[in-house]
């Protein structure tokens, strides 16, 4: 296999075949917790992607110096450092988003997607491949958050690009009565469960195992 096709595979694997949310069910806490609005969901996805890419690159370049017995604590420190950076960046430049994501920003540190990629991929593979893998899985994660948040916001609030009333687009006119359930915690579970069911059918039709 040529170099190029390996890279392409690294990139696409995380998006469909091993999508962290729809296929592997990893990192579900932020997936359910911040997806009441589309902007928050995508913002969370981008923040997690940034941490994932950075930690994948650093861990991959340090893999020769990390003794295998203490690799997990080492990985966690690297990830925690980048989470702190992202936390400060968000607080400085996107205070509204930082406020909306709340405790889920520092909780990126215990997101199993990131530690999982460090353990399964970046700790063994060369830097370039780890970088591409990070980007691929990050896109897959952001995509999943985006889809769920889109469904929940449209059904639960009848808007897009909320919660800020200035940017919110009302999709159904003033007489629309939104399904409040989807904006609330139970709706997150139910919407994700239904989406998983739909994706099961789609994956089966397309023969993606």
């Amino acid at each position, binding site marked *: 296999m040529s170099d190029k096709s390996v890279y392409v595979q690294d990139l696409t694997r995380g998006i469909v075949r091993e999508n962290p949310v729809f296929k592997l069910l990893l990192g579900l806490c932020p997936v359910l917790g911040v997806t009441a609005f589309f902007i928050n969901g995508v913002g969370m996805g981008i923040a997690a992607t940034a941490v994932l890419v950075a930690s994948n690159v650093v861990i991959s370049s340090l893999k020769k110096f990390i003794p295998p017995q203490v690799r997990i604590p080492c990985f*966690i420190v690297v990830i925690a450092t980048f989470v*702190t950076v992202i936390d400060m960046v968000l607080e400085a430049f996107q205070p509204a988003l930082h406020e909306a994501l709340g405790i889920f920003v520092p909780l990126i*540190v215990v997101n199993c997607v990131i530690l999982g990629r460090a353990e399964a991929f970046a700790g063994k593979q060369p830097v370039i491949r780890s970088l591409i893998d990070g980007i691929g899985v990050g896109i897959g994660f952001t995509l999943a958050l985006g889809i769920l948040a889109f469904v929940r916001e449209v059904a639960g609030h009848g808007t897009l690009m909320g919660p800020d009333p200035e940017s919110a687009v009302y999709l159904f006119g003033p007489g629309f009565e939104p399904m409040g359930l989807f904006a609330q*915690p139970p709706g997150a579970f139910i919407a994700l*469960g239904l989406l*998983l069911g739909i994706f099961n059918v789609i994956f089966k039709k397309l023969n993606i195992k």
Partner: protein
Amino acid sequence: MERLLAIIFIYILVDNFVLQRFLGICPFIGVSRKMETAIGMSMAVIFVMTMATLVTWILNTFVLVPYELEYLQIVTFILVIASLVQLVETALRKISPTLYQGLGIFLPLITTNCAIMGVALLAVREEFTFVEAVVFGIAASIGFSLALVIMAGIRERLEMAKIPEALQGSAITLITAGILSLAFLGFSGMLTL
């Protein structure tokens, strides 16, 4: 005293960590297949979560805040939790091998349980006093266990049920969790701090 009782009631039922706050979803989905493992995981979480709240609260109040090192919170807390889990594991293996057999496999999983990290961070953010923080840790972990055990009971019965093909596996689990969460929503607004 009244405030402590309120904390207990709120974090077990009203603001349940799993069903209303979405913390600790991974173990909630992952180990709720059998009642036995659910109870084992619950015990391990109650123990580690209480200890973690206690230790991180002390560290935060007496080390991080006086020296203005709050920006190190995330790194410190996760390291404390990881080493605490390791410590508990080693201690259990020496002191009580039978208990270790039961809880052993769950302990490493707990490091990446966001409920533990969440409890430590929330105890700081809500500006709880020491006693309140410890009670908060206990109540949150009991809330977690309650949700986990109920879920395990339902899933054992779901094994027998006829489920549409597309929804088999995790999809039906999530929908069940949604309905359970809906039931807990009945407590919302009953009490606030």
